[in-house]
């Protein structure tokens, strides 16, 4: 059986334009649900990147009192360099701390004027031998007890907080994406049913003269596919825009370098876009295919 291209193009086009309001509504809901899905993928990718950066580099920071005596600093350094559980410890002295401080408050010179290097606390950046949280905790507690130490910050704490937040955020997003995807699938189903109803006389004749079910089905599936794809294109644009916004926010002077894994490369965003286009096409084509099959079997 030959499915002629002009027939296909004509029928698909006619169907697509038959009911513009319903078509627009369908495309918009598809775009919204796929945008949510895209945002979810974007953030998940960022969290993955974030976690992998810390996986092999679990770090904690030992803060000294600003007025700690040099011998206290020496004893902490001694403790760290001799400890078997510490792989590497770097001392950030007052000048280095001041330089970081200057970078951090570059746009607030009035803050810089108030601070002298002498007033700043020094610190050790510690990379433990093993990335085991309970061991790191035990080590941290030991160090905290040393004289002159004001406290220990664990990177793991920030990671956990961030992961908790992103887990919730992405749960909400995936829930919203699924709900709106269901809504768009139902709307798609309805749009196709409306199209089937509008063409019921033609379909009756087609079946009577021996057109195959696929011949009837394919233009409607193409219509659904097209609606899914157009929606996915809009979703792709919004994902690109979102990534642009994140990238711009992270490029600011005040931003934390910690989060820079949330700005995805164009390649990653393109991959997400590809997923969205595939999901849109499947959503549309399959929804329409089911609608036609149910109509033909009724």
């Amino acid at each position, binding site marked *: 059986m030959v499915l002629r291209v002009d027939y296909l193009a004509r029928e698909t086009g006619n169907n697509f334009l038959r009911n513009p309001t319903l078509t627009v509504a369908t495309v918009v809901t598809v775009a919204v649900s796929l945008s949510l899905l895209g945002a979810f993928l974007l953030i998940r990718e960022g969290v993955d990147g974030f976690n992998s950066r810390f996986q092999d580099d679990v770090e904690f920071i030992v803060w000294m009192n600003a007025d700690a005596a040099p011998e206290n600093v020496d004893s902490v350094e001694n403790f760290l360099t001799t400890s078997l559980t510490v792989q590497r410890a770097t001392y950030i002295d007052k000048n280095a701390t001041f330089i970081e401080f200057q970078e951090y408050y570059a746009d607030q010179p009035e803050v810089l004027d108030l601070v002298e290097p002498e007033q700043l606390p020094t610190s050790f950046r510690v990379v433990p031998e093993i990335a085991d949280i309970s061991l790191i905790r035990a080590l941290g507690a030991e160090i905290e007890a040393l004289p002159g130490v004001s406290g220990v910050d664990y990177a793991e704490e920030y990671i956990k907080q961030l992961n908790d937040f992103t887990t919730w955020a992405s749960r909400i997003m995936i829930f919203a994406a699924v709900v709106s995807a269901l809504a768009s699938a139902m709307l798609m189903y309805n749009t196709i049913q409306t199209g089937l109803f509008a063409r019921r*006389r033609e379909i009756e004749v*087609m079946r009577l*003269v*021996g057109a195959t079910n696929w011949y009837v089905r394919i233009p409607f599936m193409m219509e659904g596919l097209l609606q899914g794809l157009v929606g996915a294109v809009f979703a792709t644009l919004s994902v690109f825009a979102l990534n642009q916004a994140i990238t711009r926010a992270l490029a600011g002077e005040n931003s934390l370098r910690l989060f820079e894994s949330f700005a995805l490369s164009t390649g990653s965003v393109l991959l997400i876009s590809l997923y969205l286009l595939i999901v849109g096409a499947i959503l549309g084509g399959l929804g329409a295919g089911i609608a036609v099959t149910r109509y033909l079997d009724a």
Partner: protein
Amino acid sequence: MIRLENVTKEYPGQTTALVNANADIGKGEFVFLVGPSGSGKSTFLRLLNKQEEPDTGRIFVAGKDIGQMSTWKVPMLRRNIGAIFQDFKLLPTKTVSENVAFALEVIGRPRSVIRTQVPAICELVGLGDKMHKYPGQLSGGEQQRVSIARAFVNRPLILLADEPTGNLDPQTSIGIMRLLDRINKTGTTVLMASHDRGIVDTMRRRVIELSHGEIVRDEARGVYE
């Protein structure tokens, strides 16, 4: 060409449409199905192109048991069975030639075939000069000719006609019957459901009479009653 073996068809909650029907119809025959409304004539026809499925019994078309036929072959069966109706079932937005061409187009016939076949069949049914008119611009008799052209353009083995003259005046009906007779003479088996006594009595063809779903008479060169 067509054989029914003990075919029964019931519609849930309604009267039985066909009870234990047996019939054997040979190639090239012209058969009238007669009987009052609701006697099972339309069901008889609808079973033959699988618009309906029998509850029990077997139906053979061109030697094949169509009850055993897989779903994807049904369109192929229908390409060999033309069908016309009391209400014509023409597409109002297409012209005469587009309506006829549609039947060829949707079964994937090449354009070159459509270009030659459509004018030829329109000529055959006597509408050569009205090919570009729309169904709404034609009389009832002319519309039925278009539907015959559409049913016959694929040269089917069998033509099913469900009350084709039901909406037409006697004079117009005679014209339609002449056309069906011509089609029958090309070797196409014609089955026509009718309660038009005048037509059945004039044609003197085989008559199968149905009453409450049962075949009560099967007579060669019969009359309506």
